[in-house]
């Protein structure tokens, strides 16, 4: 514990003590009083004279109380604070344990090099305490502050690379907070392979130990599974779409092997040029006896053996269910047929056409994909919603819709949105569209937003500013794929594969609304339990990629297969040397922070108490001044 003054200049108020004492010494402007005889007071005067001024001051209760009030007030104004930590310089070790740290580096791995660097830093320090922060999916202080080298070594030796993205920037922020809590006395040492960029904070003394060397790597960065209803057969076809990205300096011969459980379901060989990406499509027919609905796509290399990082050579994805998806198609114009034709082309969709007014019927859209043309109604219960050509001049699902106007060429679009995955708008022309504002733009024509994201938790949605007939988009494959994505979103299976089911992130599982407890079985059989509420159970910090199974017993036994992937191009790019950037001047510099308990309120109360006691003393003393003699 240490005491510091956050506003030490306020102690100048102590100077008020001097005039107060002077007033007490000099104050004696005595009142003249004629008494019958002064002989009786001579002894009292002798006593008074015998007292030195200082001693007299000491005896002045009122003065003492007033001095106490001044001192306490001054101390309160100086804002004394008790710090729970010492101000001795501290070494904060930030060790990167992201997935890239598992990469091999000669005969060793990057994490082994990092551990060795951390041990060297611990042993080579001049003294003082050490804090160890692991920069995994979440920055975590795993040791310290302590000066016990044995403890620190033991903690560092236990560090392992995680199969997740890192948090180096936030880990450095945490280190800065630890140092600031100690009055700014300390230094940060970051041990990383440099794969993850982070921002250097001004005023924070940071040393960086880069471990490992640039290495070639090939990674599965995206995977998706869709079910296609076969027109001629009863059995659906499952298509696995994936992207294989090269982070290598030379071409690689790659074999992608698809398995369902232990069953080989497909294979594809291809040559991957240096730095290129390869879109992979592997269809297979599911078998009734498949033990899991999770497929495994694994990369093998024909030449050169395994690459530097193994964790991104495998990806997992869940096969969507074959159940048909209810679709409510409401169109204000009977001539608009493109959308209906796209919806009905997918046999997995059960399309119901109705007038827009009928959407307002309670329960009409429960668990359905709602597609509206020329109308915009926020339908309760919809699992996904798509609005085309909303009426101009009125807000639509939180989006402001301007009047229709001629549209310049499309310039950019987002592919991260679940409804726009694998879509391209190259060559698409829009004749006339309304401009959308008030929501994130997904499709832009210059500064104009043509498609806006109106998704809510549990209900993805987009507003398309133009009618299908006002563009040549229906003539493109992406038009059909867009509605397929929408149907997948309704199945609740789209986001879980790559967006939300990444290692290091929470895993959300849809369960029956009545279910209260869900057990998650990991790839190695490790079981975890979570409470479910509102039909959703969330498991925090899923660190290991692979196939998971969520199980529940009530209201009736059930399970769901889930897939978790690393899917991080940043972690897979082992050639990146990493860069740190300086934070702008307005950024938060390291300063002594007030993670301390301030004591001024208590001192202020004591000062008030002293003043109150002084007032009480003065009034009571005057009443009590003497008693009758004899």
């Amino acid at each position, binding site marked *: 514990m240490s005491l510091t003054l956050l506003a030490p200049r306020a102690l100048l108020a102590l100077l008020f003590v001097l005039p107060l004492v002077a007033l007490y010494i000099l104050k004696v402007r005595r009142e003249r009083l004629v008494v019958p005889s002064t002989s009786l007071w001579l002894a009292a005067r002798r006593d008074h004279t015998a007292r030195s001024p200082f001693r007299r001051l000491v*005896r002045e209760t009122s003065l003492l109380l007033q001095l106490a009030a001044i001192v306490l007030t001054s101390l309160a104004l100086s804002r004394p604070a008790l710090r729970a930590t010492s101000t001795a310089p501290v070494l904060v070790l930030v060790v990167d344990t992201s997935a890239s740290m598992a990469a091999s580096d000669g005969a060793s791995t990057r994490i082994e090099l990092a551990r060795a660097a951390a041990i060297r830093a611990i042993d080579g320090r001049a003294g003082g305490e050490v804090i160890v922060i692991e920069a995994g999916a979440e920055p975590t202080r795993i040791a310290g502050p302590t000066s016990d080298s044995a403890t620190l070594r033991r903690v560092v030796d236990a560090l392992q690379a995680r199969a997740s993205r890192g948090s180096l920037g936030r880990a450095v922020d945490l280190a800065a907070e630890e140092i600031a809590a100690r009055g700014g006395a300390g230094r940060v040492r970051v041990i990383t392979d440099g794969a993850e960029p982070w921002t250097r904070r001004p005023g924070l003394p940071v040393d960086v130990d880069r471990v490992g060397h640039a290495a070639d790597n090939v990674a599965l960065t995206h995977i998706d599974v869709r079910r296609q209803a076969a027109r001629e057969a009863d059995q659906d076809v499952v298509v696995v779409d994936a992207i294989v990205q090269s982070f290598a300096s030379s071409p690689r011969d790659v074999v992608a092997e698809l398995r369902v459980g232990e069953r080989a379901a497909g294979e594809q060989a291809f040559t991957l040029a240096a730095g290129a990406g390869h879109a992979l499509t592997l269809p297979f027919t599911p078998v009734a006896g498949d033990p899991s609905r999770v497929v495994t796509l694994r990369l093998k290399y024909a030449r050169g053996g395994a690459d530097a990082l193994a964790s991104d050579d495998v990806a997992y994805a869940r096969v969507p269910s074959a159940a048909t998806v209810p679709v409510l198609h409401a169109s204000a114009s009977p001539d608009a047929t493109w959308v209906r034709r796209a919806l009905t082309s997918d046999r997995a969709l059960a399309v119901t056409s109705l007038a827009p007014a009928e959407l307002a019927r309670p329960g009409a859209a429960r668990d359905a994909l709602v597609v509206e043309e020329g109308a915009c109604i926020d339908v309760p219960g919809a699992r996904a919603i798509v609005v085309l050509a909303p009426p101009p001049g009125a807000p639509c699902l939180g989006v402001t819709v301007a009047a229709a106007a001629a549209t310049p060429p499309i310039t950019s679009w987002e592919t991260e949105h679940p409804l726009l995955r694998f879509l391209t708008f190259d060559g698409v022309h829009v004749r006339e569209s309304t401009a959308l504002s008030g929501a994130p733009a997904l499709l832009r024509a210059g500064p104009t937003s043509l498609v806006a994201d109106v998704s809510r938790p549990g209900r993805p949605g987009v507003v398309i500013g133009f009618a299908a007939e006002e563009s040549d988009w229906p003539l493109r494959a992406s038009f059909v794929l867009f509605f397929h994505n929408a149907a997948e979103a309704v199945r609740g299976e789209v986001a879980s594969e790559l967006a939300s089911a990444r290692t290091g992130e929470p895993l959300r599982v849809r369960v029956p609304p009545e279910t209260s407890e869900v057990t998650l079985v990991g790839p190695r059989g490790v079981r975890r339990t979570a409470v479910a509420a509102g039909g959703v159970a969330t498991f925090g910090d899923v660190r290991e990629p692979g196939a998971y199974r969520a199980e529940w017993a009530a209201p009736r036994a059930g399970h769901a297969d889930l897939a978790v992937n690393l899917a991080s191009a940043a972690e897979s790019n082992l050639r990146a040397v990493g860069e740190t950037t300086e934070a702008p001047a307005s950024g938060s510099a390291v300063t002594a922070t007030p993670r301390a308990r301030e004591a001024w309120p208590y001192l202020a109360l004591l000062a008030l108490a002293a003043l109150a006691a002084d007032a009480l003393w003065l009034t009571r003393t005057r009443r009590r001044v003497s008693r009758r003699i004899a």
Partner: protein
Amino acid sequence: MSALLDADVIRELEVLRKRARARVRSVSAGERTSRRRGASAEFREHRPYASGDDPRRIDWAAYARTGEPVMKLFAADEDVIVRLVVDTSASVGALGSAKLRAAQRVAAAIGYLALASAERAQIVVANEGLERAHEPARGRSSLPKLLTALDALEPRGGTDLARAVEDTLGRARSPGILAIVSDFLDGGPWDHAVTRAAAAGHEIVLVQVLADEELEPPWDGDFELEDAETGEIVEITVSPEALQAYETELRANFARLRDVASRARAAYVRTSPSEPICAAMRRVVAREVQA
């Protein structure tokens, strides 16, 4: 009646006087027994009758011969004179007029008791010595004159109580009752003078009159105390400690008075303006020695 003695006070004093006379009668024939030895029924002298005298003591034979009422006095019924030595120094006038007024009232009450008992009363004004000795008065009819003389007293000058007592003794042709009304704050050797007066056969009554502020100082803080008589300045901070020292000194003064009263077989009564006059007079008549 004077403001010094109103009707209620006189009624009270009369009760006191009769009670005292009854007590004296139980042991002697006269109203007041002489402190000197001698034959109790021995004729001593005649004196003219004065208003207030006991008619039973009129020498009717002499009256028949001369036509003038005369009183027949015996040795045990000597003609007692009550000398009222009233301190009028400036100290009695300090802290307002209440203290002097209290002294005047006490002197007036003692004088009344003397006059009502057919004794003579004489006012002796004392400050830096014997300032003035009024003619002795006798009888109830002299009461207004006595009260007027007391009422006219004004405080001034210093105090030399010893000299005033010595001067009074020097002028006294015969011993009597010597009632000294003062604050007795005079540092002089008044105790020796009182002792000598007692030795000369005077019956001593010491009445100490103090202001209420002297008995219970109400002050707090820093003061310049000016002595009313000497003008001496004493700077004082009235604190609990100072008050304690003051009380010690005042109690020493009380002890000195008690000691003198004991040695002179005198009465010692202490009073203040806030005390009813009759309460103090009860102690005077009872010849108490104040604790």
